[in-house]
């Protein structure tokens, strides 16, 4: 039943919405676990392919939720997944927006910010590790990850870096160095 799927999408993405600190990277690990391992909406390989599509598209990386919804239940699934992922966090933000303004630069505010930052860092690294462990990811991808990270840390445009990675992979594939 498609309705069951739509409800399942809401139950997966609405809670993720409220813990997506720093956006997509912090929830990729759990999104992959739910979509692939728990619900079996798609395979590990297609999750990685969708991740690549979501990085090549405009918009926040967490829009991969729309693609997971699409795989699970078509266009309605994409819409439901996107609304479920963005609506709860948006309501929190708007509620806090009113309260926060009155708080100014208070000690409480700074303490909460400092406490959340390292959690977000740990979640981002966990998301990267999870996706690098997927099937079909090997030494070339690890080298790409390390090389691109070093390049980005030196201030390169993410667009340029991704285009270079695509060109390098296309070239290596053509000469038969990678893939089979």
């Amino acid at each position, binding site marked *: 039943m498609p309705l069951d799927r739509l409800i399942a999408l809401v139950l997966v993405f609405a809670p993720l919405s409220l813990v*997506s*600190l*720093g956006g*997509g990277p912090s*929830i990729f*690990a*759990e999104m992959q676990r739910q979509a692939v391992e728990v619900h079996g909406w798609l395979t590990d390989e297609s999750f990685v*392919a969708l*991740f690549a*599509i979501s*990085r*090549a*598209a405009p*918009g*926040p*990386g967490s*829009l991969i939720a*729309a693609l997971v919804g699409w795989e699970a239940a078509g266009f309605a699934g*994409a819409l439901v997944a996107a609304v479920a992922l*963005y609506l709860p*966090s*948006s309501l929190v*933000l*708007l509620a*806090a*927006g009113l309260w*926060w303004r009155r708080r100014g630069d208070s*000690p409480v505010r700074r303490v909460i*910010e*400092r406490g*959340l*930052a*390292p*959690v*977000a*860092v*740990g*979640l981002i*690294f*966990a998301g*990267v*590790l999870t996706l*690098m462990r997927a099937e*079909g990811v090997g030494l*070339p*991808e*690890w080298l*790409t990850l*390390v090389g*691109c*990270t070093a390049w*980005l840390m030196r201030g390169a*445009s993410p*667009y340029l870096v*991704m285009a270079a990675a*695509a060109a390098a*992979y*296309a070239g290596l*594939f053509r000469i038969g160095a990678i*893939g089979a």
Partner: protein
Amino acid sequence: MADAMPPRASLGAILAVFAALGMASFGGGLPGWMHREVVRKRRWMTEENFLAGVALGQVLPGANSVNLALYIGQQLRGWPGAALAALGILGPPFLVILGLALLHARFGEVPGMAVVLGGVAAAGLANSLTVGLRAARRMRGLWPWAVAAVTFVAVGVLRLPMIPVVLVVIPASVALAWRARHAA
């Protein structure tokens, strides 16, 4: 109140500006673009008000770019402004990403496509890793590193479900930040 009354943003202008920004948001860097459009070019809000929104959007759950758009829309025109800013920043990319997925479903079997997409995905992950590394470099003291390490091991290495993990880790981390508040 040194600044003159900022020009009042119409709801249509908010939608138009954020729809354009949404399509420009490849690979991050969106707060920079928003600052340019909203503060410098249009003078819809002050620098301080904008920076408060940047901090708020990063601390609270949700995509940073979506949160910042919501905040700006809310400051400018309340709930309708927030709704239109979010629609602008998410609507066009939503349609584009589905279009790309359709193209992939149709042409995904092209030889080498999966290999190239794998490489692009690794480069995209480098983008995420860079965000994490930059934030890590700003951490001062031992406890933030311990919190980051515990979170990483629990969610990334042990593959524990994230929500129970953060429900334990976030209060602990805020408590540690409270204890260390005079050190930093």
